[in-house]
């Protein structure tokens, strides 16, 4: 592991690029738009990502996260607005930008008929790494992705989590300054997600700038220093996970579940408890700084929920409060 870090961190390389403009953000988007015919996928967003940051685009499916990511990755032309990556214009310097970024796409693009290490070597070849250098980096990345033992396995035989780790390893073969991850853990089981988060956290510690999209709240809270919440192509909120929760939600949330069809009947009786209440199909939420106190008040009003849970407010609540809709349908 130590070997990998020493080689990977590559400070000298990065300093070479950044010395003249240490303060310039890595990504600048102003009034950025993406249209597909009549449909507006991204509707005038402003975003800045600083070097070394872990930045997230949070939102439900169809919010415009992936379209934004694809524009930043220089694989989708900007419809209108201003976009600079490393201070360069994707329209004119697409290849030059792509040389310096790593991309983990939403759908894996691995060659499943080739072995794990062959996938890495070949990807290195696309960046014109000399064969020996590609092999050296591949060996380090296999170690990093905990796939060394599967180096010679055909990709088809790997589990979903392993394939995802291989995708991440592959995206690092060109030692990118910026790593773009589009829904890195969608479809993975909880254990595989935690392994992946751990790897991404290490990358962040090594100074790699991470930009990721997710519709998982816990993922955003785990990984992101700062994030924007997107809905229908627009940014509806921006800040650190903590500040967003503080700004848009209460400290705690009381979740009440009533017996069949009881939620709707109980909802009006909760009025005035906590800061606000939200009726969902399967439960009622009460936003309150003191959840236990709110629960006591509900009991005092004669309500008898089948179950009651007091928990910390999460980004899920922020999203619900901002858009009136829940994130995962």
């Amino acid at each position, binding site marked *: 592991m130590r070997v990998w870090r020493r080689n990977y961190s590559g400070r000298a390389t990065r300093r070479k690029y950044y010395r003249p403009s240490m303060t310039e953000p890595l990504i600048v988007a102003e009034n950025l738009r993406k249209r597909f015919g009549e449909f507006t996928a991204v509707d005038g967003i402003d975003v800045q990502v600083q070097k070394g940051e872990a930045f997230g685009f949070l939102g439900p499916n169809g919010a415009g996260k992936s379209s934004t990511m694809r524009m930043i990755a220089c694989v989708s032309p900007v419809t209108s607005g201003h976009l600079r990556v490393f201070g360069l214009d994707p329209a004119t310097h697409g*290849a030059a930008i*792509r040389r310096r970024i790593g991309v983990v796409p939403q759908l894996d693009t691995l060659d499943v008929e080739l072995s794990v290490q062959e996938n890495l070597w*070949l990807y290195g*070849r696309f960046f014109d790494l000399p064969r020996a250098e590609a092999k050296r980096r591949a060996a380090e990345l296999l170690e990093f992705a905990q796939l060394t033992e599967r180096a010679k396995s055909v990709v088809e035989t790997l589990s979903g989590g392993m394939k995802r780790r291989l995708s991440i390893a592959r995206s690092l073969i060109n030692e990118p300054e910026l790593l773009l991850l589009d829904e890195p853990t969608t479809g993975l089981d909880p254990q595989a997600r935690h392994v992946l988060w751990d790897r991404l956290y290490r990358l962040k510690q090594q100074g790699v700038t991470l930009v990721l999209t997710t519709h998982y709240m816990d993922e955003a809270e785990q990984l992101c220093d700062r994030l924007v919440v997107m809905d229908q192509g627009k940014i509806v909120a921006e800040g650190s996970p903590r500040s967003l929760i503080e700004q848009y939600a209460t400290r705690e949330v009381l979740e009440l579940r009533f017996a069949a069809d009881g939620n709707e009947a109980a909802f009006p009786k909760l009025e005035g408890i906590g800061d606000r209440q939200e009726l969902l199909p399967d439960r009622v939420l009460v936003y309150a700084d003191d959840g236990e106190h709110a629960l006591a008040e509900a009991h005092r009003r004669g309500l008898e929920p089948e179950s009651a849970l007091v928990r910390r407010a999460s980004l899920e609540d922020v999203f619900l409060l901002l858009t009136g809709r829940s994130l995962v349908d």
Partner: protein
Amino acid sequence: MTTPGAFRVASWSLTAYRRFWRLNLLSSLVQPMLYLLGLGVGVGSLVDRNVGSGDVLGSVSYVAFVAPGLLITTAMALGAGESMWPVMGGLTWQRGYHGIAATELEARDIVLGHATWMAVRCGIAAAAVALALACFGETRSWGLIPGVLVAILVGLSFAMPIMAFSIGVKLDGAFAGVQRFLIIPLFLFGGAFYPLTQLPTLVQWIAKFFPLWHGVVVARDFSLGTVDWPGVAGHLAYISVWIAAGIWVATVRLRGKLYP
């Protein structure tokens, strides 16, 4: 010194090919031998006994007449087949093209990489056929060597336009249609197994529109030693137009697909 993008892309295909090259090469050798035996011993003995066949075939045995046709049709079938399912795989199934598009390479590199790889594959397959042909006295000729080069061009003249077509295909059923309504008819009516003059004029014109016949004529001239240089130049130029047009359209269409 940077490696051209096309070579970087082709090295991917080469890595995949290394997994099955032995079997592939063996079948490239065995298949033409089967054709030669079947057509030469079976059909050939009938044709050559027929009074007047020499006038139509140009005073050579049937096997000698058919041999260059085998060389060229092999390249056509390979170029066409390898530019259908594999292209759709790169775009839709395994999505390898999207992976490449995320690197410093772009659509042009992928198309030229495919062309490079098709040239290699068609060269290997045609060389195997030439080797098989060289095993028999009647079909042995120095003209097989330029014939292999012609086969590479014909392979590309099918591979590149079909790649352009495959980029827009939504369901792979379309490929069976290409095989049935283009490749097999050209195989049968493209001048490989008998002179085009045996066919109605309209069919002749259709066959001459596609690059196969032009390649067969040139390869036959070489292997029978009846080279007419201006004619050869004209045929090769026509084949090259197909290749260039295929590369151009494929690049434009692939760019549209990869960078929407």
